[in-house]
């Protein structure tokens, strides 16, 4: 092995030292928890009702199946959100006086749907609209639940897109217009591609939040993961199915979050 330079040798020593300290401290914390938690007076009953292995084993397959609904709702909501958000962002960006109402609409839209708690909107739309006595399939909670999610999330994503559009330097617009491109072409070919690229990491955060917020639809009917867990909880008088549901959500959201972080880090390193 080649001789390490003094600096490399020092850095290696430091790295080993930090690793050792980190490992020791993590082990100490884990050991303390492992020792202390079972000492709590209610631990046995908590263990029985939250961390009950036989119940988890029995309910997990059905929970997984219910999670397919979450995936489906997520999958069809996402493209709708993106399209609607783009339309709203463009509305907020129009300059022609004749289209001023569009601007007002865009502003009102984002103000209202960002200002109302998602769960409230899910209730209002999910119970309210089917309450009009519409015939099937127009009274489906899947349909109106989706509408509620799309309305809320497109308002957030529209704001992300709008700030992306505004972050593109005005010299880009000058360059494009000096070549004779129309305003629409300038937006389509020059501004939007740069804006969207810049905002992908920020939008990923909303994608992750959406994965979880699909569970809000459980309150208006669809038997998705949370609802299914709820059914089991009542049936078995045990909270373990909730833990199962949490595990399933985490299996999806943790990788997604890491991926978003990775995108952000990558973007910082390239600079546009």
């Amino acid at each position, binding site marked *: 092995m080649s001789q390490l330079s003094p600096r490399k040798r020092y850095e290696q020593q430091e790295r080993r030292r930090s690793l050792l300290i980190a490992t020791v401290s993590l082990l100490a914390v884990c050991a303390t928890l492992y020792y202390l938690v079972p000492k709590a007076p209610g631990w046995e009953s908590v263990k029985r009702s939250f961390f009950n292995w036989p119940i988890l084993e029995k309910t997990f397959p059905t929970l997984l199946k219910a999670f397919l609904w979450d995936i489906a709702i997520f999958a069809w909501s996402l493209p709708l959100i993106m399209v609607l958000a783009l339309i709203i962002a463009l509305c907020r960006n129009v300059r022609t006086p004749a289209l001023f109402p569009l601007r007002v609409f865009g502003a009102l839209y984002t103000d209202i749907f960002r200002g109302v708690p998602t769960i409230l909107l899910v209730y209002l739309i999910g119970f309210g609209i089917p309450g009009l006595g519409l015939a099937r399939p127009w009274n489906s909670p899947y349909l109106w639940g989706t509408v509620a999610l799309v309305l809320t999330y497109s308002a957030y994503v529209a704001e992300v897109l709008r700030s992306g559009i505004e972050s593109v330097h005005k010299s880009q617009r*000058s*360059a494009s217009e000096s070549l*004779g*491109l129309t305003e629409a072409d300038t937006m389509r*070919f*020059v501004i939007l591609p*740069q804006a969207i690229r810049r905002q992908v990491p920020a939008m990923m955060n909303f994608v992750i939040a959406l994965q979880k917020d699909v569970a809000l639809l459980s309150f208006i009917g669809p038997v998705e993961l949370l609802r299914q867990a709820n059914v089991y909880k009542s049936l078995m008088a045990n909270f373990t199915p909730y833990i199962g549901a949490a595990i399933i959500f985490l299996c999806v959201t943790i990788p997604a979050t890491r991926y978003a972080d990775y995108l952000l880090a990558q973007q910082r390193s390239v600079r546009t």
Partner: protein
Amino acid sequence: MRNVTHKLILEDLTCRFDDLTVCDGINLSVDSGEMICLIGASGSGKSTLLRCINLLEPIDSGHIWLDGEDIAIPGLDPKPYRKRIGIVFQSFNLFPHMSVMQNICLAPKRVLNASVADTKAKALELLEKFGLQDKANEYPDRLSGGQQQRVAIVRALAMQPEIMLLDEITSALDPELVGEVLEVVKALKEQDMTIVLATHEMSFAREVADRVCFLDGGKILETATPEEMFTNPREARTREFLHRIL
């Protein structure tokens, strides 16, 4: 229709930003194939004047006659005129998300409705002429400043403009890259392109300009041949400016 004797005539052109009069009654006529250099301190109105000619800044009063047609009437659609007047900026302003080829071909495709094959062939021809043929598929951030600026010039040329406005196109470049860009400008001049160039490169202005205009406080204080301007300027302000920078 009037004033058809010159390619471009600026008549009493005034441009204000709020209270600040940036261009203050500019009069200038440019012949076809002529090269005009605008010199003057930063803030004297050179860049704004060029942006006005390209209709990027609306003018407050006056006229811009292009082939005898007033193109600066408020409310007139600027797009048909912009495509006849190319502008290159100090900071290149290439589109960072597009390759060199895409940068060059976007406007011909969208504005002139040229066929893809045609545009590409012409773009390659131009790139080759300026020694950039192997950069066609690169993205701007992989190019040096000089290369980026040459691409920006090619992008403007691809629209086959009748006039080129060059706004301090070497000011953002490292000194050793200035030469390659000025070579391109010289080549344009040899092909009888009508050029209005704002510059701080006095020796270049002296070498290639047909006429030099000295701007100060938004006015053209003095217009002369390069020989006269640099050896025997009439105005005291001009002498002072030239003395300071030469």
